[in-house]
């Protein structure tokens, strides 16, 4: 075991982690740990853009952005946090530009913007209550926005000489009494266990898409951060809200960004109908993701989808009517994906798509300064911070609008970094418990020495398939109850997992086994959250409770791990400017 001491340890080198690292002032030591090389983080997969009311192309205001976000969240988002994000967005974008991010430009040389689902402005700007029409708010760099943003942030970290520990797999968080004192990690190259003692720890570990079989998320999106929190007796918030992106490539789940529809692509069913006209008469194909995903599944269920060779169904996303320049200049990457992976020529034929598990609205509850909270009164955990997709501020409520996640990363990543910078100035190191690494070592030993019969791959596939079938776009009591027992039995069977690789060097077999445990830890609160929330709101759609129920459920759920059934608590939503209304597009 090797011990390190750093003022700050940041777990995760995606957009959130890197942005936070840039705030740590000179004179303090900061280590960024990531299980993959930083630029391999999943932020690099983001395509469409970052939302900000720059108004470079059309008149826009942060209040409209805030309203859209609140409405998009189905009023579950905390409005104080959303206000901060919408107000800060233009500054945050300009800052990225100053850092060197290569944006697409307008003819005047300003940052270019385009339309995106759920982002609107009043048709008549002087009348805030007039009909809402789509607005150009998403700042982009072709369809590689996340990629260039991640690289820009990493480059700036290099410039600032941030200390990286690449391919360090964090396995646990160290609690010292009521505060966080560091993390435990395994160096993948050698399987050695390292203990990082820190004044402040930030979890920026990204999402959990790999809980589901069809997902746009990377293989590394295994929800590790959620599991650290959950296993240390802290709560997870709003885990039932899983965003299914409507347009994943059929069978593969690879994302075809909303930008495709933002640029004019349309969805068609097997009758050739533009069915979104029926579900969202005003914004049509640019309705928020939850609605479009439900519409697609409904079309398929009612027999208007296409049947694939393997029995699964899809609808068509048609971009073939768009000018060639638009496809080549603004959507080169995603037309490439369709070509490469499905052999479809998007300039001529429609692309087969189906909803794909995409984003975690819920996560580690934090304050607006990214401090992790432990209860419904928002008591903070000393020395512990979280940002990015892993965290739940909550700005996305029950459904995130496209482009708001990258924004979330840079706004709250920075705020978290600033809060940490302030905190470490006069904080002391919390004492490091003697047994800090014991749990990790025991876990590794158990897996390495196990003679059980269960295989990681098979068990994980089972979990993913079941989650897809029963906790997918539509949910009901029967399926969810079944899943609560399912997950218990999976957890039991997980104890019998054994691996082939008994070596020390780059033991990815071991890593995957530990990740599977994290997936199970993450699936459990998703299932239980979905079961208790007896309403339909945003991405959470209960067939047995089809309506939104503000009286009972305009609340965040907090889930704690116990020995038996997880404990559930409810936390009020912050409502400042906009009172809940029916959500219609």
């Amino acid at each position, binding site marked *: 075991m090797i011990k390190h001491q750093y003022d700050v340890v940041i777990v995760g080198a995606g957009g959130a982690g890197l942005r936070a690292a840039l705030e740590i002032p000179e004179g303090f030591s900061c280590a960024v740990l990531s299980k993959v*090389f930083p*630029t391999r983080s999943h932020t690099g997969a983001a395509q469409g853009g970052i939302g900000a009311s720059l108004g470079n192309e059309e008149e826009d205001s942060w209040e409209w952005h805030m309203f859209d976000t609140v409405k998009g969240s189905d009023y579950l988002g905390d409005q104080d946090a959303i206000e901060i994000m919408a107000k800060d967005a233009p500054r945050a974008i300009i800052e990225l530009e100053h850092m060197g991010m*290569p944006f697409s430009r307008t003819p005047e040389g300003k*940052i270019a913007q385009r339309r995106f689902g759920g982002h609107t402005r009043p048709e008549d700007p002087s009348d805030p209550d007039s009909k809402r029409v789509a607005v150009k708010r998403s700042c982009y760099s072709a369809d590689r926005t996340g*990629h260039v943003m991640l690289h820009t942030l990493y480059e700036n970290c290099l*410039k600032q000489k941030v200390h990286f520990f690449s391919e360090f797999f964090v396995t646990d968080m160290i609690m010292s009494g009521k505060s966080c004192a560091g993390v435990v990690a395994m160096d993948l190259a050698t399987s050695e266990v390292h203990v990082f003692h820190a004044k402040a720890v930030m979890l920026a570990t990204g999402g959990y898409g790999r809980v589901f079989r069809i997902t746009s998320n990377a*293989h590394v999106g295994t929800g590790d951060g959620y599991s650290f929190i959950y296993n240390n007796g802290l709560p997870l918030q709003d885990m039932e809200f899983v965003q299914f992106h409507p347009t994943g490539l059929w069978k593969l789940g690879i994302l075809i960004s909303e930008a495709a529809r933002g640029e004019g692509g349309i969805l068609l069913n097997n009758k050739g109908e533009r069915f979104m006209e029926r579900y969202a008469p005003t914004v049509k194909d640019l309705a928020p993701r939850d609605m479009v995903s439900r519409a697609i599944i409904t079309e398929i269920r009612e027999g208007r989808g296409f049947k694939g060779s393997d029995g699964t169904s899809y609808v068509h996303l048609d971009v073939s009517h768009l000018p060639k320049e638009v496809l080549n200049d603004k959507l080169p990457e995603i037309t490439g994906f369709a070509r490469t*992976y499905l052999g479809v020529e998007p300039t001529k034929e429609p692309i087969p798509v189906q909803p794909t598990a995409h984003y975690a609205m819920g996560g580690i509850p934090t304050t607006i300064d990214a401090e992790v909270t432990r209860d419904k009164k928002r008591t903070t955990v000393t020395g512990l911070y979280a940002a990015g997709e892993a965290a739940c501020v909550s700005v996305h409520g029950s459904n995130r609008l496209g482009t708001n996640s990258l924004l979330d990363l840079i706004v709250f990543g920075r705020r978290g970094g600033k809060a940490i910078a302030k905190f470490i100035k006069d904080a002391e190191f919390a004492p490091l418990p003697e047994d800090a690494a014991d749990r990790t070592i025991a876990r590794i030993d158990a897996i390495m020495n196990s003679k059980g019969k269960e295989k990681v791959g098979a068990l994980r596939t089972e979990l993913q398939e079941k989650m897809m079938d029963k906790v997918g776009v539509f949910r009901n009591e029967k399926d969810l109850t079944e899943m609560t027992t399912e997950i218990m039995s999976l957890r039991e069977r997980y104890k019998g997992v054994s691996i082939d690789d008994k070596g020390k060097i780059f033991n*990815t*077999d071991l890593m995957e086994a530990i990740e599977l445990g994290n997936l199970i830890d993450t699936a459990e609160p998703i299932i239980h959250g979905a079961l208790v929330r007896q309403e339909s709101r945003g991405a959470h759609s209960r067939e047995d409770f089809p309506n939104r129920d503000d009286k009972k459920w305009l609340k965040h759920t907090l889930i704690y791990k116990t020995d038996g059934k997880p404990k559930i608590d409810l936390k009020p939503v912050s409502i400042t400017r906009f009172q809940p209304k029916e959500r219609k597009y």
Partner: protein
Amino acid sequence: MKVTLRIQRYNPERDSEPYYQEFIVEAGDEKERILDLLLQVKWKYDGTLTFRRSCAHGVCGSDGMRINGKNRLACSTLLRDVNYKKPIVIEPLPSIPIVKDLIVDMSDFYKKYEAVKPYLINNSPPPEHERYQSNEDAEKLFESAKCILCGCCTTSCPSSWSDENYIGPAALLKAYRFVFDTRDEAADERLDVVDTPDGAWRCHTIFNCVEACPKEINITWHISKLKKRLAEREM
């Protein structure tokens, strides 16, 4: 459909030399990704098979490897891209130390990347708004900014095979990315780094890098602009 993978194996804890091992896997159709076949081997037959992967659709740059003699990403190579009637030979990226199976030691590659100061340097105080840049100027950077640092290019370049000190196409591409950014002020510092025998001058326009690049970046074109810029600077 049955497909044979002939994979180069090497476990430093056990083997003194790399060797090849064949696995027969089941593929649905010819649109199957090589990465999925490797995962099938790992998950079904031999958990010790080791390789990097993450995004599975060619955007993170983790899984560069040599497939049938040529560097590519396992996740962007489909069965139909290779001759799958014969065993598909899968080896780690060439000319770079092997850590285990298909995992190579990329630290040198990253050092070269860092050597060109891959970050915007502009010490004049920024304006309130964005720094303006015409769309044409921005688009000149886009192709080079596509790079995912997968390493396929540098490890496919004969010049870097014969001397690992050659800075390599990926780093040169990165140098281009910043030298030609109208917002950058440190072009000279970077040009100094690549204006050496180990720098741009060791590129002999072999085009292996372009053939290997999974993002279809015409790296040689970018290097040629750099060389031209260097030559002009000299005169």
